[in-house]
């Protein structure tokens, strides 16, 4: 779990250029971390690549926060 969370956090920090301590479980990519809708698509692409999983579009739409992402990837991998 923590390994996945760390890897997800690294991607989010690099992609959105935010401070690591801002990336908390309930941090919304769009409302709290400054992502636009295209950033969220790119984050999902980056998660798919990092973890070797497929995230379908309807599932991607449910990934709103850092915690959502970690939970989804945890369940999927």
């Amino acid at each position: 779990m923590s390994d996945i969370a760390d890897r997800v956090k690294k991607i989010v920090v690099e992609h959105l250029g935010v401070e690591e301590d801002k990336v908390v479980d309930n941090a919304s990519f769009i409302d709290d971390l400054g992502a636009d809708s295209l950033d969220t698509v790119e984050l999902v692409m980056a998660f798919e690549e990092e973890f070797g999983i497929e995230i379908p579009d309807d599932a991607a739409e449910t990934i709103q926060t850092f915690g959502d992402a970690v939970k989804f990837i945890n369940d999927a991998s």
Partner: protein
Amino acid sequence: MFDLTGRCALVTGASGGIGGAIAHALHGAGATVGLSGTREAPLQDLATALGARAHVLPCDLSDAAAVDALPKEAAEAMGSLDILVNNAGITRDQVFMRMSDDEWQSVLDVNLTATMRLCRGVMRPMMKARWGRIVNVSSIVGATGNAGQANYAASKAGVVGMTKSIAYEVATRGITANAVAPGFIATAMTDKLTDDQKGRLNDQIPMGRMGTPEEIAAAVLYLASPEAAYVTGTTLHVNGGMVML
């Protein structure tokens, strides 16, 4: 002037006059080209004429699954996919009040929907690469309309609106999306016209002649080039002054 060395370009409708000229122009600038079209033999001939850096990728643009698969096939054949030129198009002219659903739909499917599918298919690799060029071939009649071509004109105007929307969305990612709108171009299709018909057409064109496929290809080459990095969402009209927009 324009150097596309190391870039890989997919050109649809490459078996036609304008598509072939586009492939020649991009290839001549150093790009690797993927030649797509319905008829394989002319594509093979073109690939042979071009020599190295040319790949034949037959695809029926009315087959949605085949269209969705094409960008991946092209990227695998060429190594990447940096430039997409949606040039393929069909006409099924008919007086509007007699236009059948099939005449309408088949033109929209190939000219607009297949173009959309290919644009969508190249988004992911272009976003990752932070570089991409989409050039969609529209038509003068997309802006002016034309009797007997409600389906074709609608599809070509649709291409312009879609291209602008794509341009908005991906502008910050180093990807540009533009359209080229040819006027009357001398191809196998216009060769069938009588001299009288050609004369009347030319009278409507300030330059007094039809354009050449190479003149369309030059516009596509510019929009595909690194030099056109600040040009996006535009329609480049290449029509001898027939309509000045």
